[in-house]
């Protein structure tokens, strides 16, 4: 079991006038190799939750087990935790600092105390996965690249640590449709190739629904729903109520069902809706 979270509570500024409960008894289990989409409006607690998973934040109460290692215990080694869990923040390109792309990507692995030879292998691998040409770019300054490319360097920097679990916080933020598609494709590749457990935090239902095995919906510091995209989008009305949407095609399916067209319950892509609509219209014609 990759991740087990039990009754996780996190209170900011306890005992002060600014006290606020960000996480209110979160219970969650994630299996090895699962591709999870974590979704919730701003303030739902998703940022707080992911920062617990690599030890940046400590719980007010509750337990977190990563591959059977209790990371909430007092004497856990943070290096051990960060070997297992890699976290890519929003706009990660703003954390680049080294003189060359090689050195920046090597920062993570060298903090893990690996040998030069091992580091080189990992940097090469990470650059390959993120579509960066090793020979061409290794000696260049990261600041010469475009925004999208720099983001790839930043992601490669975390991949080079070869985490078992990879968490990405809104990796497509600020990118145009093409950039977004490319990054999501690369993330899918990583999942397929290495069977890394992936947690993708996003605002876009449309983006996640095509990629993930399971969606976890957070609301007001707790898990509201957990299930496959098909299962989740059944709660379309409720999702809209809590400030999230559903993909337009799901909205369409709901509206058509309300009007009387018997569209199957669990359609989520354009392809599926199309098939359903055609099926219904043709049978209506034949009726």
């Amino acid at each position: 079991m990759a991740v087990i979270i039990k009754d996780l509570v996190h209170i900011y500024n306890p005992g002060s006038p600014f006290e606020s409960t960000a996480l209110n008894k979160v219970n969650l289990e994630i299996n090895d190799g699962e591709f999870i989409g974590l979704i919730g409006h701003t303030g739902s607690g998703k940022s707080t939750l992911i920062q617990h998973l690599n030890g940046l934040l400590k719980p007010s109460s509750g337990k977190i087990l990563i591959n059977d290692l209790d990371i909430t215990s007092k004497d856990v080694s943070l290096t051990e935790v960060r070997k297992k869990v890699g976290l890519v923040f929003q706009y990660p390109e703003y954390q680049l600092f080294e003189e060359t792309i090689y050195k920046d990507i090597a920062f993570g692995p060298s903090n893990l105390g690996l040998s030069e030879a091992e580091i080189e292998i990992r940097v090469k691998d990470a650059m390959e996965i993120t579509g960066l040409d090793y020979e061409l770019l290794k000696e260049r300054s990261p600041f010469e690249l475009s925004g999208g490319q720099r983001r790839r360097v930043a992601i490669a920097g975390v991949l080079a640590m070869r985490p078992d679990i990879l968490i990405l916080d809104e990796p497509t933020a600020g990118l145009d449709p093409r950039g977004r598609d490319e990054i999501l494709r690369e993330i899918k590749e990583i999942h397929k190739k290495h069977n890394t457990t992936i947690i993708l935090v996003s605002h876009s239902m449309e983006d996640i629904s095509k990629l993930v095995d399971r969606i976890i919906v957070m609301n007001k510091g707790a898990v509201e729903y957990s299930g496959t995209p098909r299962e989740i989008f059944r709660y379309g009305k409720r999702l809209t109520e809590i400030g999230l949407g559903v993909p337009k095609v799901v909205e369409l399916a709901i509206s058509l069902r309300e009007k009387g067209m018997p569209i199957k319950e669990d359609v989520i892509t354009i392809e599926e809706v199309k098939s359903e609509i055609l099926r219904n219209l043709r049978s209506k014609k034949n009726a």
Partner: protein
Amino acid sequence: MLKDITIGQYYPSESIIHKLDPRVKITFTFAFMVSLFIINTFFPYLLIAIFLVGIIKLSNIPLKYVLKGLRPLWILLLLTFSINAFLTPGEELWSIGFLTITREGLNQGIFMLLRLSFLIVGTSILTLATSPIELTDGIEKMLNPLRVIKVPAHELAMMMTIALRFIPTLLDETDKIMKAQMARGADFESKNVIKRAKSLIPLLVPLFISAFRRADELAMAMESRCYRGGDGRTRMKEIFFGKKDYIASSIIGFYLIVIIGLRIVGI
């Protein structure tokens, strides 16, 4: 959390002290600092203390809150006292090992301690009772006459305002960068001084680059809003000298006269 730190710790209130023209308050602070260096006996401290307490009461800021400002500086205060107490030659009062406190030392130590404490409290009243904008406006107005000798009064005030505006934002960003680097295994808490200094590079480089980028974008935004320096600019909130400011100014003048007088007379 870091967002709640206010540089200078402004304590908002509708008190008469808050409503005074910032120039009066700035001038008073200078006069106050000067007065602390004029006096050389203990008695004036009593008068000054009464005066300060009076001002604090008028400002509606809790006395405890004002004195809180002394706490983080306790090491400095202790050091000031100790250096003066132990190193001033004179009539021995008490000794332990090779450390000796003399009567003169004790006198001097307490005197310097008081001077420093009053200095800290007096200047903090300025920032507690004057909002950052008022301060920069006041400084700008006071520096304006110096423009004839090419002092860029408006530009300095503008720089101060922008700095104050961005301090919380940059603190936030520092936090984010630290977290991102820690997620990559960076250690900002090493006991080794050299390691600690080196560990700042992954923090400072991105921060500086970001600050320059912000400056660039901000300049473009300011120009897009027709900013071209101080010439011809008006202000929505103008600061005027009112009756209470004249009264306050005369009180300051009177205060200085009393202090100087006490010094001359030797009390």
